C-alpha cells in the first residue's frame, strides 16, 4: 500500500483501465459487438476520474505534488532542445539533488537549474530525495552567477521537500548556502523564470525560486513548511498534517491570489503525470513566452521590477491589508 493518497486512488482506476482494454481486445477478436459495454465502462471511468480528481483538497494536492510519477525537473529538461549538465560547487562535491547546466530552450541559450528527486528508490538514495545539501545550493549559486556573467537567462524548476536537514549539511553551513543563493538570484541582471513543478518546500525551495516570473503547476504546492513539519512545530503532532495543509494556503490558487505566483499552468484531470508530455510542453511554452517578454527589458529595469515585486509582497499598506483580508 502506498502512503500517497493519489496513488491509492489510482489503484482502482488502473483495474478499470485494464478491464476496458481487455474488453476492447475481446471485442476486436470476436464477431460479437461489445461497444455498448465498452462505452458504459468508459463512461463509468470518466465519471470516477471526475469524482476522484475533480476537486482536490490542499492535502490531496500535497500528495499530488509528491506523486512518484509526477514530472521531475529532468523530465522538463529532457524536452529542452538540448542540455549540457555542469557539475559541482567547485569546492567540495557535486550534489546530485540539484542539477543544472547550459540548455537551449526553443532555440534560446539559457542556464537551467532544478531540484531533482529520484524516480525510484535507488535514484532517491543517490539524489537524497531531492533535498539539497549546501553544495547543491552553491552549485546553483555558481550557475546563476555564470548566467549573470554571460547574459544568459535563468530557468529553474522547484521540486523539493526542503533543504537537507542532516548533520553534514549543518556543518557545511546550509544557512549560508541558501542565503547566498538568494543573493545570487536577486542580483543576477538577466531574466529569471521559476516553475514550481512539484513540492515547493520552505527556504530550500525559495533558494532557487526568486524570479521575475514564477509559474506554478495547478496541483503543485509551495509552502512555508511541510504540512507535517508545520503540525509538528505548532501542535507537536505530525499526524495533524492534513489540517496544517488546509491552513497553510499552499495551493497555486492561494499563492496566485497573494501575488507570490504569477501564472498557473493547468494540469489534466488526475494530475500532470496523466499527460506528462503535454504538461511539460505547455510549461516550456509559457517559460519561453515569459522569457521573450523579459529579454526585451534592459537589465536595470529588470532588476528594479524584481526588487519592487518582492518589495510589495506582504508590504504594509492600509489598502493592501484590507484587500487581503477581504478575501477571507
Amino acid at each position, binding site marked *: 500500500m502506498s502512503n500517497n493518497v493519489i496513488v491509492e486512488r489510482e489503484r482502482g482506476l488502473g483495474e478499470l483501465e485494464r478491464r476496458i482494454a481487455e474488453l476492447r481486445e475481446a471485442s476486436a477478436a470476436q464477431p460479437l459487438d461489445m461497444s455498448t459495454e465498452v462505452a458504459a465502462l468508459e463512461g463509468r471511468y470518466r465519471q470516477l476520474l471526475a469524482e476522484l480528481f475533480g476537486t482536490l483538497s490542499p492535502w490531496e494536492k500535497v500528495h499530488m505534488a509528491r506523486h512518484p510519477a509526477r514530472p521531475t525537473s529532468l523530465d522538463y529538461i529532457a524536452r529542452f532542445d538540448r542540455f549540457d549538465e555542469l557539475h559541482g560547487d567547485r569546492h567540495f562535491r557535486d550534489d546530485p539533488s540539484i542539477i543544472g547546466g547550459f540548455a537551449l530552450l526553443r532555440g534560446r541559450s539559457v542556464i537551467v537549474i532544478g531540484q531533482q528527486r529520484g524516480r525510484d528508490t535507488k535514484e532517491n538514495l543517490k539524489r537524497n530525495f531531492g533535498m539539497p545539501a549546501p553544495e547543491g545550493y552553491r552549485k546553483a549559486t555558481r550557475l546563476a552567477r555564470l548566467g549573470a556573467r554571460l547574459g544568459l537567462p535563468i530557468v529553474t524548476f522547484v521540486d523539493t521537500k526542503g*533543504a537537507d*536537514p*542532516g*548533520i553534514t*549539511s*549543518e*556543518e*557545511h*553551513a*546550509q*544557512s*549560508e548556502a*541558501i*542565503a*547566498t543563493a*538568494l*543573493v545570487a538570484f*536577486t*542580483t543576477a541582471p538577466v531574466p529569471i523564470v521559476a516553475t514550481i513543478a512539484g513540492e515547493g518546500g*520552505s*527556504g530550500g525551495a*525559495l*533558494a532557487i525560486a*526568486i524570479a521575475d516570473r514564477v509559474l506554478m503547476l495547478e496541483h503543485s504546492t*509551495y*509552502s*512555508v*513548511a511541510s504540512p507535517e*513539519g*508545520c503540525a*509538528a*512545530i*505548532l*501542535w507537536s503532532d505530525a499526524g495533524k498534517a492534513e*489540517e*496544517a495543509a488546509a*491552513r*497553510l*494556503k*499552499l495551493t497555486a490558487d*492561494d*499563492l496566485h491570489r*497573494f501575488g*507570490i505566483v504569477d501564472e498557473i499552468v493547468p494540469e489534466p484531470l488526475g494530475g500532470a503525470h496523466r499527460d506528462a508530455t503535454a504538461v511539460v510542453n505547455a510549461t516550456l511554452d509559457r517559460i519561453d513566452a515569459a522569457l521573450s517578454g523579459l529579454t526585451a527589458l534592459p537589465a536595470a529595469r529588470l532588476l528594479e521590477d*524584481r*526588487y519592487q515585486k*518582492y*518589495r510589495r*509582497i*506582504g*508590504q*504594509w499598506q492600509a489598502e493592501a*491589508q484590507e484587500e*487581503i*483580508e477581504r478575501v*477571507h
Partner: protein
Amino acid sequence: MPKRDSSLWTKCPKCGEVLYRRDLAANLDVCSRCGHHFRMHAYDRIAMLADGDFTEIGDEIAPGDPLGWTDKKTYSAKLASDREQSGLNESVVCGFATIGGFAVALAVMDFHFRGGTMGRVTGERITLLLEEARRRKVPCTIFAASGGARMEEGMLALMQMAKTTAAVTRFMDDGNALIVVLTDPTTGGVAASFAFQADVIVAESRAMIGFAGRRVIEQTIRQRLPDQFQTAEFLLEKGAIDMVVDRHNLKPTLIRLLQYVCHATPSFVTLSAPQSGAVEGLSKGDHAAT
C-alpha cells in the same frame, strides 16, 4: 517599556541557580554563576547597546491575519497574548541610534514574541530600516533571534526572506556595511537570509545557530546530537561565522567593528566617539545603566 513577568526571582535554566532579577538585569541577563546568556528582551538589548536615544521606526506597522488562521486559538488571539506578555507588537524592533558615537541602523529581534519568527511585518520593518539606512548611508546592525519563518502567515512569511534579501543587496551594493549578531536561537528562514548575508557575522556565546532545528535533525537521523552541535563555538570552528563574543564584550566589539567599517581615523574617534580607551575599559554593568 514593556510589561513583563514581574516576579523578583528567576531560576537559571542551565545551572539551576536562583537569581535576583535586578542583579540579573544589571549583569546583562547573564547568569552570574554559570555564564548562561538569557534570551534578552529587545528593549533591554537596545538599552545595553545605544549610547542614548533610540528612534524607533516601523512600530506603527502591526501584523494582520492574512491567512485567517485558527487552530486552538485564532492567530489574532495569539498575537494579542504575545503583545501582552512581551510588550512588543512584532518580533523585531527597528530604529536608529548611536553606538559608541557611530550612527547606526539597529534591528533587534526578540524570541519572546512568537519565538522570534519572521512574519510579514518583521520583514517589512527590516526592509524599511535597510532602505532608510541606505538613504542615510549608515551601517546597519541586526540582532537575529528567530525560530524561522512564521507558520501562521504561510508563504507570506517565507517571502520575507526574498524581500529582506533584496533590501540587503541594495544596501550593501552601495558599499554600506551590515553587521549581524546571532543570538540564541537563530534558525530557519532568518538564518538563511539576512543573518548569513552580512559582512561580519558575530555570534553571542553559546547561542544555538542552524538552518534545521535540532529536533528535526534528530528525527531525521534517528539519533541524539552532541550538545556542542549548532552552538556558536561549533560554527566558529566550522568556519561559518567570524567571531564568538560574550555579551559583556558585545558593545565594545561592535564599536570597534563600526570604527573599521566607518573608516574612522583616530582623530574622528577622539572627536565624536566615546574613545577607544573608554570602550576597552568598559566594565560589567556599565551598559545596564544606559
